[in-house]
């Protein structure tokens, strides 16, 4: 009986075994003898495919679930209208004023500090950090943010990275108001990009471009340099790589976990009663998202700073990433999903399908060899 020679001999070590999460379409082990009809019975595979058509775990991660409308009544509707008037007429102008004031203070302090203190690096950095924390607090105030922090505050030490689950760009602002992190982000166009290239640059932030494949090595090198520098701000990474709707976590990219340093997980969970903070980047621009937050009642969330983790002996970076994802998901009450967040932008690689085919083929051979 000829053996199956693996045509793609390099196994895809880049991701953990998806078979652990998905139901396998392999042959029933109840039949000791493999008959032709078992091989021809494609119903498990078809059922899987139909199941995926009807509902699949990946699309669920990016669905923004609108809250149930409660204003369907004669007396509830006027109450809701009153609420709209208060939100748009009273709260929004107040918040806009607060935010504008904050920006004025920030800009008037930042530029002098940045240009005049060019020589005194340490002092300048400290002041810049304080100012960034200030403007982030103004932002949070402009949405009436009620943020509860649990756990010890992050400290500035070399050889450590912070990882967090990602729901929206405001995650960064909420974390930044407590500690001035340096973050690694996708370069955005528009006014966000302008902010990124001027102010956030001074914090030591790193940019990447999702669509460039060569980018990965450059970014990996920059990450390593940053982490090893003693004086740099603590690095914050969102290993999911994309915004998820705060009910699920998608697979973490291993880049943050193979830098050879301690990983401190942070879990963020938003309370949806007041507003759904998920930024569905396919549906709204960031400006619309911010405006939506500014015209809601409040942004309520919990932030947990969890125990720092190290790579255990004999653990691969992928297993490490999965372990940390487990910790974060359990703490924030999120369900885990075995898909790569970047599948939002591209098709799954054919290797995944080939692996399924290989496992089916192997079970066929195993059954035949049992004769």
């Amino acid at each position, binding site marked *: *009986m*000829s053996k*199956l020679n693996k*045509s793609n001999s390099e196994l895809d070590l880049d991701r953990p075994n*998806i078979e652990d999460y*998905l139901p396998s379409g392999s042959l029933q082990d109840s039949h000791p003898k*493999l*008959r*032709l*009809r078992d*091989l*021809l*019975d*494609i*119903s498990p*595979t*078809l*059922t*899987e*495919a*139909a*199941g*995926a*058509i*009807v*509902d*699949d*775990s*990946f*699309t669920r991660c990016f*669905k*923004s*679930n*609108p809250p149930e409308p409660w204003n369907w009544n004669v007396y509830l509707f006027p109450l809701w209208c009153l609420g709209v008037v208060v939100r748009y007429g009273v709260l929004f102008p107040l918040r806009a004023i607060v935010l504008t004031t904050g920006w004025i203070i920030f800009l008037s302090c930042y530029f002098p500090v940045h240009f005049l203190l060019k020589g005194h690096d340490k002092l300048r950095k400290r002041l810049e950090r304080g100012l960034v924390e200030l403007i982030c607090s103004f932002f949070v105030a402009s949405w009436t943010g009620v943020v509860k922090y649990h756990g010890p505050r992050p400290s500035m030490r070399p050889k450590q990275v912070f990882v967090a689950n990602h729901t929206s760009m405001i995650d960064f602002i909420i974390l930044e108001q407590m500690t001035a992190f340096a973050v690694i982000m996708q370069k955005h166009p528009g006014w966000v990009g302008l902010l990124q290239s001027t102010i956030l640059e001074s914090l030591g932030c790193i940019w990447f471009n999702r669509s460039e494949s060569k980018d990965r090595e450059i970014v990996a090198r920059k990450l390593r340099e940053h982490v090893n520098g003693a004086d740099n701000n603590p690095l914050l990474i969102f290993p999911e790589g994309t915004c998820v709707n705060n009910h699920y976590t998608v697979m973490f990219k291993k880049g943050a976990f193979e830098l050879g340093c301690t990983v401190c997980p942070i879990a963020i969970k938003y309370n949806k009663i007041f507003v759904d903070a998920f930024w569905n980047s396919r549906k709204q621009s960031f400006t619309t998202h911010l405006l939506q937050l500014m015209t809601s009642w409040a942004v309520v969330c919990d932030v947990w700073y969890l125990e720092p983790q190290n790579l255990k002996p004999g653990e691969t970076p992928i297993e490490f990433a999965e372990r940390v994802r487990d910790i974060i998901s359990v703490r924030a009450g999120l369900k885990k999903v075995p*898909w790569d967040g970047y*599948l939002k932008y591209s*098709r*799954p690689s054919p290797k*995944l*399908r*080939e692996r*399924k*085919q*290989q496992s*089916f*083929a192997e079970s*066929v051979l195993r059954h*035949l060899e049992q*004769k």
Partner: protein
Amino acid sequence: MGNTSSMLTQYDIEEVQEHCSNTFSQQEIVSLYQRFCQLDRNGCGFISAEEFMTVPEFAVNPLSQRLFRMLDGLNFKEFVAFLSAFSSRASLQQKVEFIFKVYDTDGNGKVTFNEMLDILRDLTEFSDLHLFLVIEVMQKENTPMSLKIENLHKRIA
């Protein structure tokens, strides 16, 4: 995610239900409609290949190309009729007919040996030599060169 422009009326639901021979309840049809609208992002009334492939679980399935060929260009009514074989209320006859249709790529009502080989190739990525060897080892019974639907029924049931 709301379907503001095209809500299903009671008449629509009943029409779809009749078309799929009552294998889905009305509530299930409404859920399927929501799913159809979610997949059909550009709102053109049918789900294109691109839109199907955005579901990673479907894209990694070895039989996805075949199923896609059968699903291409279907509107919602036909979509529900297609999925009716998977409902718990579908009869065994309906399920076997569906499997037969998946096998019978040229649609001539017969499943030839080549069509069976094609399916096995899709599932396992075996080379042709491997496939012949596997089938030979298992061939204690005579495999007829082409099967009509009743024979397939006997074979799988």
